[in-house]
């Protein structure tokens, strides 16, 4: 597989944001990983890592090293929808455990797992910067704050 032309064009523009030369160029790697994950099926496949390695003049192992370091990059395929529940302290104090329990019940997914029907991947995440609007979830890259269990049920229902 090769990277789609659209992304190659984007990455060629992206690397101009950084100094010239190999070291400057690789600075675009993390933004590029984000774009690949967004555009190419929601996870970073081994092929994507090889393609990015070729683009950024790196070894595939270096790309893997980076992709595997950052929690936002997914190295296995997700379900159709991804629910991330913040379980850090400010959320925990105002009901994150209830949110997580309810999310498990409604989706049938275990934490860091995907529901048997493939619809939902459920994750816990650390503080998302929504502490004074807690509790929160991130559903398919959108924050839902001041969350209630009813609202959670509605959101998950909409995905069904």
């Amino acid at each position: 597989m090769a990277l789609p032309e659209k992304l190659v064009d984007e990455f060629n523009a992206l690397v101009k944001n950084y100094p010239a030369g190999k070291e400057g160029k690789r600075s675009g790697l993390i933004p590029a990983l984000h774009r690949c994950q967004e555009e190419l099926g929601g996870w970073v496949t081994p092929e994507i890592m090889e393609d990015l390695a070729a683009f950024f003049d790196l070894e595939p192992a270096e790309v893997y090293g980076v992709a595997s370091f950052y929690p936002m990059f997914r190295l296995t395929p997700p379900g159709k929808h991804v629910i991330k529940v913040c379980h850090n302290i400010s959320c925990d104090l105002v009901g994150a455990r209830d949110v997580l329990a309810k999310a498990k019940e409604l989706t049938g997914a275990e934490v860091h797992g995907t529901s048997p029907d493939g619809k939902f991947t459920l994750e816990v995440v650390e503080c998302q910067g929504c502490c004074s609007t807690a509790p929160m979830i991130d559903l398919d890259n959108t924050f839902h704050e001041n969350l209630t269990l009813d609202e959670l049920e509605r959101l998950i229902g909409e995905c069904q």
Partner: protein
Amino acid sequence: MSGFETYLMSRMAREDSHTLEGYKAQGGYATLERVLKDMQPSEVTEIVKASGLRGRGGAGFPTGLKWTFMPDASKDPRDRYLAINGDESEPGTCKDRVILDEDPHGLIEGVLMACYAMGCAASYIYIRGEYRHQYRRTEAAIAEARAAGLIGKNILGSGFDCEIYMHMGAGAYICGEETGMMESLEGKRGHPRPKPPFPAGFGLWGQPTTVNNVETIFNVPFIVERGAEWHRSMGTEKSPGNILVGISGNVKRPGVYEAPLGISAKTLLESPDFAGGLHDGRKLKAWFTGGSSTGMVPGSTIDTPMDHDGMQSIGAMLGTAAMIMIDDSQCVVRAMEVVARFYDHESCGQCSQCREGTQWLHQIFRRIEQGKGLPQDVDMLTAIASGMAPGKTICALSDAAAIPANQMVKHFRAELEEHIQSGGCRINHTGNFARGASAPTEVHA
């Protein structure tokens, strides 16, 4: 509001505060124009130095002084950079996002002034990957400013060139540590660098670099516009000015508020202008003073000035001024377990003290909370923490994990021992939806 001047959040009440039009309508970029026309770069640094502004990223380092660490451009002609730290991932902290969301041009104007002062031809704004909305807002503001000739070559006809780029992180707390952030910006794992060399000599791509927090730089245009004296007329002598305080946890009106440094934390908790108090019938059991890394102190310390010295006087820290309030329906051991779990998850693994220590602390707090603690565990916590900090590792994440553990043993030993002796926790853990917290709005001006 409560008899003090507000400015940081003053523009945000306007619906279009995030647009160039909204910003200019409130006087935005006028000070930049004056700076570029009438002031020498060193004059800008002098004002910031004289203002006493201290970094808002957690350490409280004097901003103007930091800028002077950049090498003299006449002797060191290398390219130099300003890196803006918008990683904001210290638990409890949610204030930079308000700036990125509501007033990104204020940040951009500050970046341009700081770059002018330090002779940086480019700045990178590093924003945590989860802040998509904030990223887009700031990116749009940069595009508007560029189109208006405020970013790029020959800004406002002054001959000053400056580029501003956005860069998205990918969800690692360690990338908030300034050298971890630089590694991440360079497309690498976020492994903090040993210091020295310091960023001012060897930063991004090995070039001179200054790292400042979003809120720190957001303060700069206000100070340059109104002067160092004005800034010093607010707050306290050693911690002048106003600060964005994030209040979360078991309070009636959690939110991000502007307040002068040195205001009593009790006022912030109780005043209807701020958090509006705890839920009815509750008492303050404990609070984190400035993010999880500053540790928990007993509720009885609440009447203390929120500034660097005030927090030090109760053995805590101002940190990011993110107050996390814990009422007496909660278990502090449970709260500590959550925080210990976080550091265990976030250690980058380079230093053995931190990699192992954060795991051990987490395991021990967890077993105590679950009623499986051993009689020797409390002393073990102290022993482990003393092996992790202070200053034993490449970066301060290890300290950030050790401090809450030490605070816990110091202030809440009785709770730990009670859990160990009685084999469990008496407090129900299902959170507090039932208590009917009123839904807070996103921003309280």
